[in-house]
């Protein structure tokens, strides 16, 4: 328990540091970004919006830096990340809120599926070393070295096109209104098939490879020989002794990859013009939408931290050696 509290304190500190850096970065941008933005929007910004931009960029010259900092935290506490320029006048939190579920569901589900499938195949390949499963390894190694986005481009070129079942871009049929009905969900699933397959194919092989190698390493441990000598059923030796121990590094890797879900598949989303967070970040960067970029970075940072915390907790459960008493 103490261990967990210590970790929690560490992550809180890291989160504070990340948010503080997030506060300072725009204030270090040379020049007056607000003025250039105001001129770009040619008077479409209300005085309120201009003021909030000044606060956001730290150009609110009436206030001291400390007051600005306090103000920044107050805004954050209310979930107020400022207004987006590109989607003006929507607040950043709303823009991110619209994009986040797309990424979470698409990449979240594929990451989980690829982890489960890859680890399962890895256990099989490691335990039955020299069987047909080993024949998969060169193929998976090749696939894991292919970048996501390139695989996506190939998938679009080969599978998508006029009249094809697979749409080449977007998250749902244009013209549909997002709602939880069967037509919309069906369309969303149809649109997610190609990107999901792309991510699955190129990320699964990594899990297979690492799990197989850990299995081979663990299978040489003394306690595996002991388990055999004890006359335990083969299944129990493979699962409860070998796979259970070999799983540890993979689980840590999985928790970390959860943190990368939010921002990690930017290129896939760009290739498929998928309405997720990665595509949003891409658009924010090309439109110099600073508040939006700031907000997305914030979300990515926090999700990485949460995933790390999750990894610690899971590890605590799986490996008794990390549980220190006292």
């Amino acid at each position: 328990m103490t261990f967990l509290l210590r970790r929690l304190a560490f992550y809180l500190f890291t989160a504070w540091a990340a948010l503080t850096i997030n506060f300072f970065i725009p204030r270090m941008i040379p020049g007056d970004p607000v003025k250039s933005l105001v001129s770009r929007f040619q008077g479409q910004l209300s005085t309120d919006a201009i003021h909030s931009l000044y606060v956001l960029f730290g150009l609110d010259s009436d206030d001291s830096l400390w007051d600005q900092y306090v103000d920044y935290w107050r805004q954050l506490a209310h979930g107020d990340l400022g207004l987006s320029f590109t989607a003006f006048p929507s607040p950043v939190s709303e823009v991110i809120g619209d994009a986040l579920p797309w990424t979470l569901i698409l990449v979240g589900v594929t990451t989980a599926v690829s982890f489960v499938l890859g680890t399962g195949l890895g256990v099989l390949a490691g335990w039955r070393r020299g069987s047909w499963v080993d024949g998969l390894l060169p193929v998976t190694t090749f696939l894991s070295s292919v970048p996501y986005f390139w695989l996506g481009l190939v998938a679009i070129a080969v599978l998508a096109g006029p009249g094809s079942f697979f749409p080449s871009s977007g998250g749902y049929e244009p013209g549909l209104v997002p709602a939880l009905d069967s037509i919309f969900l069906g369309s969303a699933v149809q649109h997610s098939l190609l990107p999901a397959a792309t991510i699955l194919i190129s990320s699964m092989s990594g899990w297979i490879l690492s799990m197989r190698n850990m299995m081979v390493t663990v299978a040489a441990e003394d306690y595996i020989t002991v388990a055999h000598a004890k006359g335990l059923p083969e299944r129990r030796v493979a699962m409860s002794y070998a796979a259970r121990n070999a799983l540890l590094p993979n689980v840590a890797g999985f928790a970390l990859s959860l943190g990368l879900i939010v921002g990690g598949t930017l290129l896939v989303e760009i290739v498929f013009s998928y309405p997720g967070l990665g595509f949003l970040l891409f658009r924010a960067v090309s439109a110099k939408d600073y508040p939006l970029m700031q907000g997305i970075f914030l979300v990515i940072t926090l999700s990485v931290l949460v995933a790390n915390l999750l990894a610690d907790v899971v590890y605590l459960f799986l490996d008794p050696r990390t549980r220190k008493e006292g």
Partner: protein
Amino acid sequence: MSEPVLEIRRLSVDYGLGDSAVRAVREVDLTLHRGEVLGLAGESGSGKSTLAYGLTRLLPPPGVISGGQVLYHPVDGPPVDVLTLSPAQLRAFRWAETSIVFQGAMNSLNPVHKISTQLVDVIRAHQPGLSRPARLARARDLLRLVGISADRLDSYPHQLSGGMRQRVMIGMALALEPQVVIMDEPTTALDVVMQRQILSQLAELRERLGFAVLFITHDLSLLVEFSDRIAIMYGGRIVEQAPAAQLYGAALHPYTDGLLHSFPALRGPRRELTGIPGSPPDLRAMPDGCAFHPRCPRALAPCDSRLPTLGPPADDPGRAVACWLHPADEVVAR
């Protein structure tokens, strides 16, 4: 002498296949009698551990048994050849009839499972009828048997000292009251005080439960005190076999003699330590004749061309030696 419980007949073990195979154990004959402690000693690489792994069919690849028989005599019923058991029969045989305490005291327990899990799962695998409370009670008994308090059942291996872990392993080895316990350097990783404690405990347990022990070590001084009979291995073969006191008092094979003069005696008059010159033979290119002759201070004419057979020397039928200095009367195996 009592009846045999485990008979190893002309057992050979190779590493690898075909011409490049290394023959680590060569036609070994060895008999373990009910309730005795048989010590097996030799240098590193002499094939001691390979023999133990071979007779329990636990050889990791590329190890293969290339010939021989391992006859196990159950308490009731006809003897069975361990090497021809089906996988299911083998699983049932393991641990219930022959358990093993391994070399790596530190790594024999799975670090992610509690002691109780690891004690209980072997009982459950072999006695599925036993209820969970009964299994746990048995596990507690086993810990008490080896002098560990029963509340350690909920500990993880890393919370125990090396000596305690090895005791847990010994307790685990006795879980199903096997007839034979093979101990492969069980105390090598421990300090001498702990070695002594564990060995005396083991002697006491054997007295009480009556299992036979095949005790493998490179430490001949341990064996002299602890075992009834001692077999000496060199280059994959048994070169001498005798009751412990006789072997210590008057070794026949020059290699045994060399081993005995490689460590100080614990009791009795002081002796000069000489050691054995040279190094162990290369198993890929064994010398012709007796494997020991290049290092032997007393090599004779036939030593480098003809292989001496293991048999009783002329004056003493109770022991066996494979040496041209003491040619066997007749070729009697075992």
